[in-house]
């Protein structure tokens, strides 16, 4: 069973109202009794029934309470009212409790029915205490209902005034950055060791001229330790080889993918 959290719901009892409203109309009139919406779950119903015993909750008769609850549920079932499951669960539990309480003491299980009954009683006490506390709280002199703050306060205003801060270094640094940012920028390209296509072309074609056999491409590269230059030379020599092949001055052969590339000059 869930509750509604709505404000101003007409079905809802205002806290100041007597919460025992249903109970205080406690005739045996079933129609009045069976307004299940009036309770927020079985514990609420139990508390209402308990209060009808008109004794201190500490002196409440649990057996009587159980009987009342079970009678109530039976009536509801007789009227074929749809009961929320938790009411039925509570009914079953209370029926069990009742039978346990009536059993001879030495046959009692653990936890003892007395403990179960006491637990129920303690819960009812706590709920009742909070219900009373809520009523007393709601009945206090409440601001906006019983007491009022000033209707038209002038209000306090705080005007913020900025105190700007900047220091000498930030100023000078900012100027430096403006100048640096807007100064003409000179782009310098660093000299790199490369073998040009022209030099590769002349080197490869001259070497092809003196050698008649297949030669691997890497044999055309100049001996040099610098790996950057070697890469450059390889790339240039490869392009030179392609160019010579295009001109019909050389043939290229490669046995398998990524295999060594071999070159041979073609005699005209």
């Amino acid at each position, binding site marked *: 069973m*869930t*509750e*509604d*959290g*709505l*404000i*101003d719901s007409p079905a*809802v009892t*205002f*806290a100041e109202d007597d*919460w025992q409203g249903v109970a205080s109309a406690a005739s045996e009139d079933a129609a009045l009794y069976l307004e299940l919406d009036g309770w*927020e*779950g*079985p*514990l*609420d119903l139990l508390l209402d029934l308990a209060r009808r015993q008109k004794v201190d909750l500490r002196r409440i*008769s*649990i*057996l*009587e309470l159980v*009987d009342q609850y079970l009678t109530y549920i039976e009536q509801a079932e007789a009227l074929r009212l749809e009961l929320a499951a*938790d009411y039925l669960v509570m009914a079953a539990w209370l029926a069990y409790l009742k039978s346990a*309480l*009536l059993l001879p003491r030495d046959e009692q299980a653990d936890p003892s029915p*007395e*403990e179960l*009954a*006491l*637990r129920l*009683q*303690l*819960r009812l*006490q*706590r*709920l009742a*205490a*909070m*219900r*009373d*506390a*809520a*009523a*007393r*709280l*709601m009945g*206090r*002199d*409440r*601001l*906006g*209902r*019983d*007491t*009022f*703050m*000033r209707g038209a*306060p*002038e*209000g*306090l205003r705080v005007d913020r005034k900025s105190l700007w801060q900047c220091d000498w270094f930030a100023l000078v640094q900012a100027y430096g950055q403006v100048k640096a940012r807007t100064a003409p920028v000179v782009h310098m390209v660093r000299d790199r060791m490369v073998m040009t296509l022209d030099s590769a072309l002349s080197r490869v074609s001259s070497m092809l001229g003196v050698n008649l056999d297949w030669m691997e491409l890497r044999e055309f590269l100049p001996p040099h330790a610098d790996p950057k230059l070697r890469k450059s030379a390889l790339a240039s020599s490869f392009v030179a080889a392609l160019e010579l092949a295009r001109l019909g001055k050389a043939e290229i052969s490669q046995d398998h993918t990524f295999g060594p590339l071999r070159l041979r000059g073609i005699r005209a």
Partner: protein
Amino acid sequence: MSEQHAVRPDDLVRAVEATLFAATEPMSAEAISVHLGGADVKAALAELEQAYRERGVQLVERGKRWHFQTAPDLAHLLRREREEVRRLSRAATEVLAIVAYHEPVSRAEIEAIRGVQTAKGTLDVLMEAGWVRIVGRREVPGRPVIYATTPDFLTHFGLESRRDLPGIDELRAAGLLDPVEDALAEAMATVGGDQDDESDAGLASEEESA
């Protein structure tokens, strides 16, 4: 009225008075002090509270914050047709009371007391009203959020502090703010001691109903 009112309160008292009259929200002594350039306003507040005690307007402290409000005994004259106070559902009033008397408290703990699930909307309504807020998480498995009341709650219900909650001392003394488990353990220990006359939990009633 007579001469006695011509006694001019000192300027700090007047300044505190004017500040609180003009303020749209309750103010802590610290906030008043900051507003007045750091003056110590405690004595002035005490003097003002005293000066207004019997008047139609009173200076009250609620949760360490001060504000002027009309005297409660004049409520019948001032109540407006337009009900300005939000009407709370019964569920909401109960949850509010449980939070106030048990804070900080988790939703599961609220539900354990009420015996029903608490709809999400109920706590939302109380938080929207500014009376309840989330104050952290309980360091247990699942780390549930825990709720407590706010200074606005105290202001609205005219409570100087939580100690002024109606009946809180009695409830605490009676153990009614302790968890059921604690009370049960204690009660069972007692019952174990003298079972005969103390078993009002159910057996005393046996004869009654039988």
